[in-house]
């Protein structure tokens, strides 16, 4: 008897929970096109992340100038294309901004001549001579 009552109570409770939206007319949030920018934003982030890795690859000497130049122009174009593909009202993307800052930092470090022009070794900031090959630093590479 207890079991029957328990079963009925369980069934009634579950049914009420599941049917409540239909009875009250309450709905789940509908799709409002709220993620329409996401694909463009994601593409931009992917391209920027690849650019960031590319900068590091150049800094670590994995890529030489020629390989770097070819890939860099491709990736920059993709990042720009993605930005262009999104509507003008695309919200600010902090992730992309962070990546851009990181890329800028690496580029600046390389510009300031921390990377040796001869052996591509990246030196500590303030260094005047390459700690690996001894060549003078300073020229943009």
């Amino acid at each position, binding site marked *: 008897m207890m*079991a029957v009552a*328990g*079963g009925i109570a*369980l*069934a009634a409770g*579950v049914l009420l*929970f*599941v049917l*409540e*939206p*239909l009875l009250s*007319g*309450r*709905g*789940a*949030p*509908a*799709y*409002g096109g*709220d*993620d329409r*920018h*996401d*694909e463009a*934003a*994601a593409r931009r*982030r*992917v391209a920027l*992340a*690849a650019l960031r*890795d590319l900068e*590091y*690859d150049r*800094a*670590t*000497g*994995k*890529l*030489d100038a*020629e*390989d770097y130049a*070819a*890939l860099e122009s*491709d990736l920059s174009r993709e990042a720009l294309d993605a930005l262009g593909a999104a509507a003008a009202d695309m*919200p600010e*993307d*902090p*992730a*992309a901004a*962070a*990546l851009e800052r*990181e890329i800028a*930092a*690496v580029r600046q*470090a390389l510009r300031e001549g*921390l990377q040796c022009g001869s052996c591509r070794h*990246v*030196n*500590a*900031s303030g260094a005047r001579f390459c700690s690996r090959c001894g060549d003078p630093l300073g020229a943009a590479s």
Partner: protein
Amino acid sequence: MTTLGEVALWIALPIALWGTVLSFAGGRTGRTDLVLSGERAAYALTFLLALASAGIVAAFLGERYEFWYVASYSNRELDTYFKVAGLWAGQRGSLVFWTLLLSGFASIAVFRNRRRNREFMPYVSGTLLAILSFLLVVLLFAEVNPFERLGFTPANGRGLNPQLQNYWMTIHPPTLYLGFTAFAVPFAFAVSALLTGRLDSRWIAVTRRWILLSWFFLTNGIIFGMRWAYEELGWGGYWFWDPVENASLLPWLTATAFVHSIQIQENRGMLKVWNMCLVVATFLLTIFATFLTRSGLIESVHSFAENLKIAYIFLGFLGAVAGICAVLIIYRLPLLKGESAIQSFVSRESAFLFNNLLFVGIAFAVVWGTLYPLITEGFFGQKINVGPPYYNRVNVPAGLILLALMGVGPVIAWRRASKRNLRKNFALPVAAGIAVAGALLALGVRHWAALSTFAISAFVLTVIVAEFWKGTRARARISGEGRWKSLLNLVGRNRRRWGGYVVHAGVVLVFTGLAGAAFDVAVTQELAPGESVAVRSAFGHEYSLTYESLSHSRPRASAANRENDWRWTALVTVRRGGERLAVMRPERRFYPVMDQSSTEVGIHSTAFEDVYVIPRDVDLESGAERVVFEVKVLPLVPWIWYGGMIVAAGALVSLWPAGVGSGRTAAGGRVPGAAAGQAA
């Protein structure tokens, strides 16, 4: 409690069917009340299935032997935690447990996306509820209801298979099931993407962490299974290419391929059809694994053989899902076109592609080997099993190429790698590989597969260590941070990449551990108490094992009818070069209720090798207490377990949410895409 659980199982089916219909209808008509009702059904199912599972556990703990399932998988003598584990000890309970986990993951997916990705969600919940409905139909109508009564109450149950009475039994199956069921979520998103026609890489970004989570559990589940086999099956191995082992390996192979190929879709917009096929195939293989493990269709050392009817139902389901997905993919082919093409054969994309072909190739070889006995029986009337030699011949070379690709992938450039790029990055790692090969040849190693494994491993490890070293150094120089902080930030800003490298390092260790099997040493000898046996390991260590004495115990011997097992325990002292290393207690056990005996091996682990002692036979008649011991020294086996731990750690790094640990970094914040993609 048990009755309530049974009732809950019956209520669950109509709720699941209701939710399926309403979710799809809501998605089609745009009526949000129908969608919400469908999502409520997912939550309700989790609750109902938790009740059903609790009901089964309560029946085990309450020794309710009027239930066929409880009587078949336990007895009064069984330890409490094995009674709790009774939930997944056999086919019926396993199915309930599987369904519970799936509904749990469905609820988490629905809850986490209650406000975002709404475009996908009606079809996601619809797909997940459809799978749940199928499982509930099986549970209730395919003669596998765990609440089926015997019609009488036996005084005691039949007990649990001795091989399952091991603590790994409480860990290994749930871990695997978590991996199997978690993969249903990416599959549901893929189906939803096909139905809605939103076929950019959005569904992948949304489910990326589900995919990694599933992979994490699958990998751990397989390694736990290997450890179980190693400790419990007592033959000194960890993998036998047994059908059930293969069944768990298959979805892992395709899931691993998928983890790699989605990166090409995200980076280059390529391989969309291929990724759809992989996600469907992996899901189908998780279902296939479940039914193969629990159907007894193919004989196996696991052979928990049971009910063939259920096998045909599962096969029908697999066929239906495959058919529907194939139709959907073909229908959406125009939207699945690649956005770019491979520019050069020598590039990271092509390394990834090659990796995928190898994984899928190995998967096909394993499917063929697993189903071969069925095929020969069907066509020639005779079951012919293929054994480890078949699998090794196919998979060892493929595995070695995969191993080498792990060293190529990280340093080869995307799109097009120049010769300069290759020379620059591969000179040192290749030199390391050649040096190791040369050293081993000089030491007299002539086993080509093992030699190649060690050499390629050195190559890959050098690549990985160099990547970490160079990356950290460049970062430290540019940002002015200290070494450790740079390393943490390096990993934190691109967890997937660096976590992946950690996984690769772990896999390298596992491979070297597997290659160690080429140098196993084994001696079998009958000893009387006081006598010793000497073994010389591949590393040149001289071990001496002395059989000291034999003891007999009858745990819980107070009441004659309450004995789970009788144990004969040998005391064995292990010495190396005269120094006493350990005392082992290998056992023979006899389970009177089951009329079965089993072996508990003795294992002494060092950093480089295991001493593994199997008491093959105990002479009880003469009273001389002579024991036949098989002593094995297994080099590098511990590395498999260390490697497994490193793999798990790397996978955790990869799937850890951004914004936890090193602060909200690259993908932190509430960016629409990033937040949803990272945290769905």
